[in-house]
């Protein structure tokens, strides 16, 4: 493992410290926590608070999306480990402006349980808390009998929607409604060229031979659904797009938003080439995205790979929310 770090155990506090001190005009640390909130506190007055978070290692998620128009706060756990309820609870208290707080949770046992415990704690203080459990990763089949699908890059689009709605004065119930309605229209799927190395572990989550890739991996190097010889960008796009098409039934009469997301070690060069092939293959279906972003939004430390998220914009309002201006480090 070759990384620019100090003690592997200090990765999270040092990273959060570096982030808030580099961008003091946007974010501030919530005292004695690993959570950050907006520096512009006035932007939160009279608004529903929006909190996201989860294990670290997904930078710029989630602190990079804190700021006017998007998240009110983000809580960072240890690397790939959900934050603890006390931390989340502190963030809830810090951003509540009397209108309640909305939690964006990714569907992992740990996140769900820790955020739930924090919600219980906050409710004892009479703070209204609602939440959405994001499960946009279609690599894993949904099922009543299992944990269900994982929450991955599509989470960032949920942040954007609820953040814009909150900034425009939506109520807690309206925000919950918005998230619930939008979520089933967001699908993500990824391909990995290499796995992530957790600093405290010191070696990659799995080994991929020099000429192999894996479809359907998660953002914690959870193994995917198929391993194959490396393919061209065109063929990777074909595989991922066909999965999403199966789920969303892409249709020329609909409007779509697209997020092409680098996993950490994949350069923009490759992300743009992937986007080129994606746009070509969408064009065959006569589809041209109404909104698109390409870059590192929900990473997996130093994993090489890309995820593709498509969002079926069934409501005109959703596109407006995506385009709504924000003041964050990373959107």
């Amino acid at each position, binding site marked *: 493992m070759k990384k620019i770090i100090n003690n592997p155990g200090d990765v999270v506090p040092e990273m959060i410290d570096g982030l808030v001190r580099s961008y003091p005009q946007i974010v501030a640390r919530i005292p004695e926590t690993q959570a950050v909130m907006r520096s512009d506190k006035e932007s939160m007055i009279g608004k529903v608070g929006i909190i996201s978070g989860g294990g670290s290692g997904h930078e710029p998620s989630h602190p990079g999306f804190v700021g006017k128009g998007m998240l009110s706060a983000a809580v960072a756990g*240890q690397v790939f480990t959900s934050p603890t309820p006390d931390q989340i609870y502190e963030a809830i208290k810090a951003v509540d402006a009397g209108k309640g707080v909305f939690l964006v949770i990714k569907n992992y046992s740990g996140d769900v349980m820790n955020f739930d415990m924090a919600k219980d704690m906050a409710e004892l203080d009479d703070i209204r808390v609602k939440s959405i459990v994001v499960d946009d990763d279609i690599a894993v089949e949904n099922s009543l009998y*299992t944990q269900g699908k994982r929450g991955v890059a599509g989470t960032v689009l949920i942040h954007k929607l609820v953040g814009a709605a909150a900034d425009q004065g939506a109520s807690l119930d309206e925000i919950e409604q918005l998230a619930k309605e939008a979520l089933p229209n967001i699908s993500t799927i990824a391909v990995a060229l290499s796995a992530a190395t957790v600093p405290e572990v010191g070696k990659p989550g799995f080994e991929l031979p020099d000429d192999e890739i894996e479809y359907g991996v998660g953002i914690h190097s959870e193994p995917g659904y198929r391993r194959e010889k490396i393919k061209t960008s065109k063929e990777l796009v074909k595989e991922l797009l066909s999965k999403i098409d199966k789920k969303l039934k892409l249709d020329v009469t609909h409007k779509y938003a697209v997020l092409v997301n680098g996993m950490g070690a994949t350069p923009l060069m490759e992300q743009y080439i992937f986007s080129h092939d994606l746009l070509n293959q969408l064009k065959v279906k006569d589809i041209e995205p109404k909104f698109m972003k390409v870059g590192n939004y929900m990473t997996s430390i130093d994993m090489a790979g890309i995820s593709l998220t498509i969002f079926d914009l069934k409501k005109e309002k959703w596109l407006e929310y995506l385009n709504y201006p924000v003041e964050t480090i990373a959107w």
Partner: protein
Amino acid sequence: MVKEKMDMLTVEIVNKWMELFYEKISEKKAYLSELDTPIGDGDHGNNMMRGMQGVKDGLEKLENPDLKETFKAIAMALISKVGGAAGPLYGTAFLEMAKNCEESQAPADLFRYALDGIKKRGGASVGDKTLVDVWTPVVDNLGKDELVVEVVQKAAEGTKNLVAKKGRASYLGERSAGHLDPGAVSSCYLFESFIEAGGIK
């Protein structure tokens, strides 16, 4: 009668238990993370170590605590230090023991409350390849006064052939079979430590 008396948990036993569990986790930290690698995210050992360091520090700070305070300190340390899935589960277990230890100090009773809390928190049932698969036979056998180390170890090993239905391992579907569940193994250490600490006669 004597037997029943000896089964009652005391602050001393719980302290000894946590001491031994701390040692076992220190020793097996890398192994637990390794178990968490093929079917998880490779952090279970680190998570538990952080938690047990917190438990150790938390218990040292207490002055003449009673059983409830002791359990509460353990629960709070686990909840606020472990994170991930294991934190709320182990934390809830000890929180339930704290809540109920004034009513009964019998491990059979307390561990049942703990197990109910774990199941409620995580929604897992027996056979889902989680720590529930260790806690359940432990509670059942304690009820029958039959708990021995072999039972615990057999329960942990039994998770190997299961297909995970909860937690990260469930994303692997069938491919989760053939690997021990890390949470089940850490729970195995928990109960080994408990027996070594003299928790049961």
